[in-house]
């Protein structure tokens, strides 16, 4: 699944996702990616976020919406991402998932839930500090 947030010079912000979902799913099953506030959320006055992972669980917590509302309340993007993950972890400690967050000034962060085989989450960033996309990682 890809989840993306884009922010331009003038502060316009958009977010989006695209996925083919979980392998061997029950036909008709839809994950969190197309659910507003779950797969992604964008508000140019607060920030944007996009989530990835076990959509059956993550959609129940609207992690992207939560992260944006936390940034609206002043949390930095990393903290907002961590809180959104911990909200899910409280109920499903072994869930597979990660989230990226960006606020209106171009600060960004990410967070993930540590489970066997997933202790680091990789994501891409491109801003005016570099002339190429940069691979970033965060320890879960």
């Amino acid at each position, binding site marked *: *699944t*890809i989840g*993306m*947030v*884009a*922010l*331009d*010079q003038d502060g*316009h*912000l*958009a*977010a*989006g*996702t*695209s*996925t*083919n*979902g979980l*392998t*061997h*799913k*029950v*036909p008709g*099953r*839809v*994950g969190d*990616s*197309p*659910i*507003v506030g779950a*797969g*992604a959320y964008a*508000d140019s006055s607060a920030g*944007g976020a996009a989530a*990835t992972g*076990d*959509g*059956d669980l*993550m959609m129940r917590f609207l992690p992207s919406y939560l992260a944006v509302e936390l940034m609206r309340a002043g949390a930095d993007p990393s903290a907002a991402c961590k809180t959104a993950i911990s909200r899910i972890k409280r109920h*499903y400690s072994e869930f*597979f*998932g*990660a989230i*990226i967050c*960006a606020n209106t*000034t*171009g*600060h*960004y962060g990410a967070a993930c839930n540590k489970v066997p085989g*997933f202790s680091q989450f*990789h*994501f*891409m*960033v*491109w*801003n005016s*500090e570099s002339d*190429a*996309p940069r*691979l970033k990682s965060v320890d879960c």
Partner: protein
Amino acid sequence: HTSLPLVINTWPFKNATAAAWRALQSGGSVLDAVEKGCGRCQIEQCDGSVGYGGSPDESGETTLDAMIMNGDTMEVGAVADLRRIKNAIGVARAVMEHTDHTLLVGESASVFAENMGFIAEDLTTNNSVNIFSQWLKGNCQPNYRKNVFPDPSKSCGPYKPSATLKQNMRAQHANTHSHD
């Protein structure tokens, strides 16, 4: 990290980041950037979890989910369980721009997409057929069924509900190769 513009995306999908950035640099909107970025992954089938030919369901079919959101206007377009149309993010944007709805799903979403000019084509590939046939050969393991018979942890369906409901630990299937 305050240097705008910014493109950030999940997983190391570098070409998607570049496609979005190029869209911004060439004067496109942030919606264009998100559509181009996600669209690049659909074409490249990023790690098999995006686009056609990946993550077949229990009947071997690939279905697509996507959404796009305008942070200025809070307009959203989304599609789910989209069949036979490769460009899911494009259809999601068409939902936003050509309906007052937010989310269209399933077969009817595909009909909408065709009406909007998107081409219908088979989303299965040799890869998705191979994943599916291996799964069938392995007695349909892993799967997402529970409280049904025959025993879903040992055999394929079709399944019927079992009379007793057990509260088992939730099976953990999502991983770096199968996720939303």
